[in-house]
């Protein structure tokens, strides 16, 4: 097992150590001093130069490891292919649409999909993509023309780096159905059951498109108060979260005095 330098989180601090990555297990040296079989891993989260690994029957053993991309790529590949997860061979295209714009050179990649506790991993020779289940915004069983044939695919819309991204999965229908059902169930909490009035819907669409409050007020001819009321509805339905609280101010006597003095001609 070749040792590579990493940092691990230990008692709330990042500690430099070494790690061995083997064929069926990895080892974290002191202060952790533990060997972890890949098959005992139940969840894996990837964040830039870090991974969070949950192992053990209930995922009770949590390891946070930071290292260079090359090391983490190898580690993730072993984990994804051997961990305790629902896994299937499939073709995937991720991302296919980003922010509403079709990626013209997007292509199908042959690889595997692992559905773990908190996310779905797409893995091929060249790519490792993680979609956290909490970031999934839509699942659809649909068809797509591939090599002049209409084939069934699962379409997954998800958030990624402040953009809405669409990815596709292609595999035999029976597996596709299992994947679709699993994802529907896993993302049940974010399904929309509320009735949304047209104006609130339009505001939501404008927020989605990146319009700020002033632009929304201008476009829909709404007052501050009206827009605040609609924001409250969106917040109440769990459709939105507060980014920051906008302040509206009016000048005090001191402020007015400053402005008056600023605009005074030097001749006055």
């Amino acid at each position, binding site marked *: 097992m070749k040792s590579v330098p990493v940092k691990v989180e230990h008692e709330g601090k990042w500690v430099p150590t070494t790690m061995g990555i083997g064929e069926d297990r990895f080892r974290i040296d002191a202060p952790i001093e533990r060997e972890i079989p890949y098959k005992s891993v139940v969840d894996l989260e990837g964040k830039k130069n870090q991974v969070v690994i949950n192992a053990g029957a209930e995922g009770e053993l949590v390891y946070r490891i930071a290292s260079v991309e090359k090391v983490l790529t190898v580690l993730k590949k072993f984990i994804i292919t051997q961990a305790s997860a629902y896994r299937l061979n499939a073709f995937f295209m991720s991302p296919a649409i980003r*922010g*509403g*714009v*079709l990626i*013209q050179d997007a292509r199908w990649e042959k690889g595997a999909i692992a559905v773990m506790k908190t996310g779905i991993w797409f893995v091929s020779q060249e790519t490792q993509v993680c979609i956290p289940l909490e970031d999934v915004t839509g699942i*659809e069983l649909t068809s797509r023309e591939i090599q002049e044939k209409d084939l069934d695919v699962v379409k997954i819309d998800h958030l990624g780096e402040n953009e809405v991204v669409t990815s596709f999965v292609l595999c035999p229908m029976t597996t596709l159905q299992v994947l679709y059902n699993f994802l529907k169930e896993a993302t049940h909490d974010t399904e929309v059951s509320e009735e949304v009035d047209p104006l609130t819907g339009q505001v939501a*669409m404008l927020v989605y*498109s990146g319009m700020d409050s002033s*632009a929304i007020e201008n476009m829909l001819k709404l007052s501050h108060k009206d827009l605040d009321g609609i924001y409250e509805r969106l917040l109440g339905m769990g459709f939105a979260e507060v980014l920051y609280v906008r302040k509206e101010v009016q000048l005090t006597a001191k402020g007015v005095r400053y402005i008056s003095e600023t605009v005074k001609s030097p001749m006055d």
Partner: protein
Amino acid sequence: MGRILIVDDTMFMRTLLKNILFSGGHDIVGEAADGAEALARYRELKPDLVTMDVVMPNVNGIEALKAIKAADPSAKVIMCTAVGQEQMVKLAVKSGARGYIVKPFQAPKVLEEVKNVLSA
């Protein structure tokens, strides 16, 4: 920055696109609500780029795209359609579309696509 003609049958989408494109420094030279009007406005205004909705009454976006390309083979048109109609891409690309936007869209990506098409 480009002179852009926006074609969409809903005023809401036209206004949204207008705001996005305007914020990116583009000049919105005109709007049209269907394919027939789009062709007439294109001939009149000679814009640098057209954003064209696919599903519209009377003459749809694909037909309008074909007509514009027949009138001006160098025309730059970005097609714009709703989620679930991505299958139209092939047809639109065959008909000469330079780019494709799927509704709902996000402003930065729209501006990026417009910039790419304008500079191509």
